[in-house]
């Protein structure tokens, strides 16, 4: 039922420290801190001396030059925006957590003129998706099933692999347009 094989489906290739970077800016959510712990195992703690770490959820068990804990994703986004505005070339951005978190932080970085290919990303934690209803344009976070009922307009939506970096969301399309109310039962596809 999930429409697959779509090129816009993001690929997360891993945090991999850029040894040339003069500053390392991390935005991590939940289990995303484990991706940082693994980089410390591989590269040692040297890079942490020039690292800024912003977290939603618990802080990683490391000592970095700067660490800051945000209560929610929107609060972290506000802080990250300021960090990006003040950052210089030579700063490498690393994002890890759920897809919805990576998407929203990356969207912020794109708005600050950063090329998405230069951002290092690693997906950790839930597979739940951030989905836009293509009909009412309402975005619903943490979608675990397909189809799901749009939290804004109530349509039954099929979740596609079609992804928008600009919106930081997958696309949900009405599944029972021909026979309203005749949608197949939701299946948990993104636990």
């Amino acid at each position, binding site marked *: 039922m999930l429409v697959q094989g779509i090129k816009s489906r993001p690929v997360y290739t891993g945090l991999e420290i*850029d040894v*040339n*970077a*003069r*500053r390392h800016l991390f935005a991590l959510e939940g289990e995303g801190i484990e991706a940082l712990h693994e980089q410390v195992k591989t590269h040692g703690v040297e890079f942490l001396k020039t690292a800024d770490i912003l977290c939603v959820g618990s802080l990683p068990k490391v000592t970095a030059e700067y660490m800051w804990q945000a209560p929610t994703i929107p609060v972290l986004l506000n802080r990250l925006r300021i960090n*990006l505005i003040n*950052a*210089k*070339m*030579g*700063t*490498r951005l690393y994002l890890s957590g759920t897809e919805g978190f990576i998407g929203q932080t990356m969207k912020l970085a*794109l708005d*600050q*003129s*950063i*090329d998405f*290919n*230069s951002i290092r990303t690693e997906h950790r934690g839930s597979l739940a998706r951030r989905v836009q209803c293509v009909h009412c344009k309402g975005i619903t976070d943490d979608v675990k099933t397909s189809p799901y009922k749009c939290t804004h307009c109530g349509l039954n939506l099929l979740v596609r692999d079609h992804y928008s970096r600009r919106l930081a969301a997958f696309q949900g399309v009405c599944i029972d347009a021909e026979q309203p109310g005749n949608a197949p039962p939701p299946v948990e596809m993104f636990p």
Partner: protein
Amino acid sequence: MSVNTEMAVHVAKITQVAEKVKRFRFERIDGRPLPVFSGGAHVVVAMRDGDLLRRNPYSLMSSPYDQSAYEISVLRVEQSRGGSAFMHEHVKLGDTLIVSQPINLFPYDVRGRKHVLMAGGIGITPFMAMMDQMTNEGSNFELHYAVRDRSHGAYWRELTERYGAHRIKIYCDVEKLFIPTDAILANQALGTHLYVCGPSGMIDGVLGKATALGWPKQNLHSERFLAPPPGNVFEVNLNRSNKSIVVGTHQSILEAVEAAGVDAPYLCRGGACGQCETSVLGCDGVIEHHDIFLEPEDKTSGKKIMICVSRVKGQAITLDL
């Protein structure tokens, strides 16, 4: 097969802008407007030199929005294969030349927050058109322009007058002024892009420093046109055309193929764009790769060759052409 639709132009103006630099202005013979291009684009100029058809790429330096004419600047190169010498000595006002459609392998990234341009010598030309476009589009840029001395450097004076000394920085070798690359690269806002055009040594040096300072490759842009280097004579067997041809000392494979009447794909003719990538079916000798397009593993595989600049040291090569 070239993807170009060529246009006949005549030389409308020739200006000696510096000791070894001439600017040429081309207007279409049929009087129709030339295509709008984007800053950083080049055209391939075809010159009929006796029996020889020369084709050289030159960056467009006129305003991208000016459809009445294209302008290029040509540096007289001492070790020239003949193209720049021909342009300097034989091309006269009113002469007819053939130019390709504009091709851009060096566009600026409009998403960038700021654009730092570094030019060495004649490498200034693509930036002339690029800065015109950036000004029109309200993009933030600065130019660092290195010249040997002020009489060699074309355009430094008019650029300073047009854009202001705060955006145009001139560095003269003879005045012992050099581009302070490290300081410039270490102090740019995140989201800045870097563009380098000039001698190979300068491009490699600047890009190497940028990488060492943590600039991602997505923010680094450069352009260099390599002239096909001379070498020993060798034979080329064209599998699909069922022809066997000889590549002369001062000829590239592409030029020899064209002279034999076989249409091969090309765009830049300078080892940069990848259009003329050709499969190697067999080689009696060693391929001398001169391009900057193929990945190192492609070069060592011996299965691919860029026929615009690369040669064979040995007897013969068989190509899928």
